[in-house]
Structures are given as structure tokens and as C-alpha cells.
């Protein structure tokens, strides 16, 4: 079965410091991996995705994610955090054997302090 794990409920980082939000996955076959961000009282916004190709994927708002097949990870990163990055982040994997299913992680709350 496909699954996604976000091991941290919350990540705290100071503004200007690099940030990492962790995600590991379990899939059969090649994974389609996604990151979404949810600001308070809003829907989810697409940030970036990995389908194939370069392991480092760049997305919106200066975020990037690194696909690591051997570690089955897809961690979200940003070199310099902003207070406005504070939000809830979701990792997701698409079930390639069943195109309708997106499996979402439980979410990680990112707090960036000034």
C-alpha cells in the first residue's frame, strides 16, 4: 500500500535560517511526490512535485525538495526562511496503480520566528 509519513508535527526555525520539513514515502513502483502548503483558514496550495528527472526539484516561493530513492525521502527545503513561510505543509504521493488516490501525510506545522 502507498503511504506517506511526516515524522515531525512541528518545526521551529528562526527567520533567515535554512529550513527542512521531512517526508518519507512507501510506494510500489516509481513515486509521484508532491508538496502542498496550507495557510490559516485557506485551502491547500501546490508547491512542487517530483515525477522524474533531476532529484532536486524547485518550486514556488523559493522552496525546493530533494528526492532520495535510497532513503525513500522527499524533504522540503528552503535556504532562508521567512516569517511568512509559517504554515502547515503536506507531503503527498500519487498511487500510480490507482490514479485517483493521493495519499497525504499528516502535515507539519512550520513556525518561523523573527
Amino acid at each position, binding site marked *: 500500500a502507498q503511504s506517506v509519513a511526516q515524522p515531525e508535527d512541528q518545526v521551529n526555525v528562526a527567520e533567515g535560517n535554512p529550513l527542512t520539513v521531512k517526508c518519507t514515502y512507501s510506494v510500489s513502483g516509481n513515486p509521484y511526490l508532491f508538496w502542498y502548503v496550507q495557510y490559516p483558514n485557506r485551502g491547500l496550495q*501546490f508547491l512542487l512535485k517530483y515525477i522524474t528527472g533531476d532529484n532536486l526539484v524547485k518550486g514556488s516561493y523559493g522552496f525546493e525538495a530533494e528526492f532520495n530513492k535510497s532513503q525513500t525521502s522527499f524533504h522540503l527545503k528552503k535556504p532562508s526562511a521567512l516569517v511568512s513561510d509559517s504554515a*502547515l505543509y503536506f507531503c503527498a504521493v500519487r498511487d500510480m496503480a490507482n490514479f*485517483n488516490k*493521493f495519499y497525504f501525510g*499528516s502535515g507539519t506545522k512550520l513556525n518561523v520566528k523573527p
Partner: protein
Amino acid sequence: GAGVSQSPSNKVTEKGKDVELRCDPISGHTALYWYRQSLGQGLEFLIYFQGNSAPDKSGLPSDRFSAERTGGSVSTLTIQRTQQEDSAVYLCASSPTGSSGNTIYFGEGSWLTVV
């Protein structure tokens, strides 16, 4: 439309009443999804439509929940005899199909409170 549109954005209803939540997907998107998100929690898959048919209803939590989609576009999620545990944000998402259909785009959600 430019994005996925959901209505109402907020709904307060009395326990036992029926509610209807509407989703208007991005124009041309054939796939449509409903998810539920309890306060500050993750996403719970409810149902998926491809066109007007629903090949996967596995996430609907009880027979009080139903959904339909007409004309391959607008979808309605209906909750009958609402209970307090139904209070949540109901999120709709859509995507195109084919090789480009690998990203889903969400609406702003319908915030349901059952009192």
C-alpha cells in the same frame, strides 16, 4: 473558472439537518476529489469522480454522506442528518487527466460547523 470554487465558504447548521456543499472545478478538469480535514489535522479522502462517475467512494464515512457530479463539472456533497462529528473543512480538488493530470488543485474549502 480560474480556480476551484467552493460554496458555501462557511456553514453553521443544527444537528440533524441536511447540508449540501458545492464544488465547481477548474474548467476542463475531468477528475474531481473531495477530502475532509478536521481542525488542524490531515486530509481524509472521501470520494473521487472521473467525469460523472465515481469509481472510488471508499472514503465516505457513512451512508449519510453522498456525492454526485453532473455534466462532468459541478459536484455536490450532501450530508444528511448532520452530527457534531461532521464538523470539519470539506475540501474539493480537481485535475486534468492524461499525462498532465498528475497535480490536483484545491479550492478554499467549505467550513462546516454542526451545533
